[in-house]
C-alpha cells in the first residue's frame, strides 16, 4: 500500500505554511504526525496533491502552564504531553486520556493538534477538550481567530476550520476537583467503543460543578449539558449517576458498525460514564 503521488513541502514558519495552503487551496493538506492521514493516503481514501509537513514550524511546539492557563502547541505529541510534569499536575485528565490513545509508537508521532483538528469522531482529544471548555486558535491568511472546542465540530471530518487555516494551539483553564477519562476499546490501538471524560468539583459534600463529554458515540464529540446538570447539587450517589446516564443517552447517537450494534454501544456508554463519574467523584 503506497499513497498516490503528491508534492511534499516542509515550510519552516507558520506564515509560509499558510502561504502554501493559500496557493493550492483544497488540493493541499497539512500533516502533523501523519498517523491518521498517512493510513488514509495508503488506502487511497485521501487524495492529496500537496502535502505540507509542519514538523519544522517552531511556532506550533511547546507546552506552557502559566498560572492556571494551559497552552498546548498543535505539534506537541502525545508522548510529549504524557512526559510533561507541569501539565500532569495542572490537568491530569489529559495525561490519563493520552495514555489510552493508540500505542507507544503511535504516541511518539501522533500530535494533540492532529487529534483535535482531524474531526474523526473516534479521536479522544476532541471530547476531552469539550469537557475542559478549551479554545482552539486557528491561523489563516487573514490572521488568527479563536474557536471554542464546543463549537468546532460540525459533523464527521467537517469542522469550523477553513481549508486555508491551520490549528496552531489549544488553550484552557486548568480544572480543579476530580477528573476521569474512561475508555472501552476492543484492543490496544483501537478507537473507543465508548469513552467518557468527566470533571467534577465538590462543595459541602455535593457536586458544585460538572462537565461531561462522550467520544465516538455520534458523528461529533458530545458535550452533555443535561448529564452535567443532573449531577450538579447531587450527592453523586447511585441515583444521581443513573439520572446523569439517562440524560447522556438522550444526547448520543451511536451507529451500528464493527464495534457493535446500537443497543450494545448505548449499554457500554452508560457503563463507562457511570465508572467515570464514580472515579472523578472519588478524586474530587
Amino acid at each position, binding site marked *: 500500500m503506497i499513497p498516490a503521488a503528491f508534492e511534499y513541502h516542509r515550510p519552516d514558519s507558520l506564515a509560509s505554511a499558510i502561504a502554501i495552503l493559500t496557493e493550492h487551496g483544497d488540493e493541499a493538506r497539512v500533516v502533523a504526525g501523519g498517523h491518521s492521514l498517512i493510513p488514509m493516503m495508503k488506502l487511497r481514501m485521501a487524495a492529496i496533491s500537496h502535502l505540507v509537513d509542519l514538523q519544522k514550524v517552531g511556532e506550533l511546539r511547546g507546552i506552557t502552564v502559566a498560572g492556571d492557563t494551559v497552552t498546548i502547541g498543535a505539534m506537541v505529541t502525545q508522548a510529549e504531553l504524557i512526559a510533561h510534569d507541569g501539565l500532569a499536575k495542572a490537568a491530569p485528565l489529559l495525561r490519563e486520556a493520552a495514555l489510552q490513545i493508540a*500505542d507507544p509508537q503511535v504516541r511518539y508521532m501522533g500530535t494533540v493538534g492532529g487529534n483535535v483538528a482531524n474531526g474523526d469522531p473516534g479521536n479522544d482529544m476532541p471530547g476531552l477538550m469539550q469537557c475542559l471548555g478549551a479554545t482552539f486558535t486557528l491561523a489563516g491568511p487573514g490572521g488568527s481567530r479563536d474557536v471554542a472546542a464546543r463549537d468546532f465540530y460540525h459533523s464527521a471530518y467537517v469542522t469550523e476550520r477553513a481549508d486555508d487555516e491551520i490549528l496552531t494551539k489549544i488553550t484552557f483553564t486548568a480544572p480543579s476537583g476530580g477528573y476521569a477519562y474512561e475508555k472501552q476499546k476492543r484492543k490496544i490501538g483501537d478507537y473507543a467503543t465508548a469513552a467518557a471524560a468527566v470533571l467534577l468539583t465538590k462543595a459541602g459534600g455535593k457536586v458544585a460543578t460538572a462537565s461531561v463529554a462522550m467520544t465516538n458515540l455520534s458523528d461529533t464529540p458530545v458535550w452533555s449539558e443535561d448529564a452535567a446538570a443532573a449531577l450538579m447539587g447531587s450527592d453523586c450517589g447511585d441515583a444521581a449517576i443513573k439520572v446523569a446516564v439517562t440524560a447522556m443517552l438522550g444526547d448520543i447517537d451511536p451507529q451500528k458498525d464493527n464495534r457493535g450494534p446500537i443497543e450494545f454501544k448505548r449499554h457500554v456508554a452508560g457503563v463507562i460514564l457511570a465508572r467515570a463519574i464514580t472515579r472523578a467523584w472519588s478524586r474530587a
Partner: protein
Amino acid sequence: MAKKMQISLTVNGEAHELLAEPRELLIHVLREKLGLTGPHIGCETSHCGACTVDMDGKSVKSCTVLAAQADGATITTIEGLGNPDGLHVLQRMFREHHGLQCGYCTPGMITRAHRLLQENPAPTEEEVRFGMAGNLCRCTGYQNIVKAILAAAAEMNAKEAAE
C-alpha cells in the same frame, strides 16, 4: 508522477544520500534502497509493529512514516543493534528465554524494547507490557518476550553497576 527528492538519512551510524519519491514509505527505503531487511512489513496498517525502527530517539512504525518526513533523521534498525558476531544483550536474552518462535515480529520487538529500556532502564513487568503494546506476536503468547526484556534490563543494570 511527482519528481524525486534528495533525502539524507543517517542509518546505523552511516550517512546516506538518496533519491526517493515523496510518497515512498520509510520501510521501503530501508529495505529496498538500503538493503536493510531486518525491519519487516507485517500488517502495513500501523498495528503490528514489525516495521518498528528508532528515529531520532523515538520508536516509530516505518510503514506509517514517509521517507520525505524522515529526511534529515537519524535511524537505528535491528542491524544497528547487533549482529551474529556480537549480539546485543536484548538479542541474547530473546534467544536465551525463547522470546521468539517464527521470528517475524522479533526485529520490531527488540528495536522497540531497546528504546523502552533507554527511557526506563528498570521497568516493572507491567511497564514492559504497556511499553510493548504496539508490537504484536502471534507465536509466543508474550510471556517469554516480557521475560527476555526484563532479563536484558537486569543484565544491563548489573553491568552498569559493576563499571
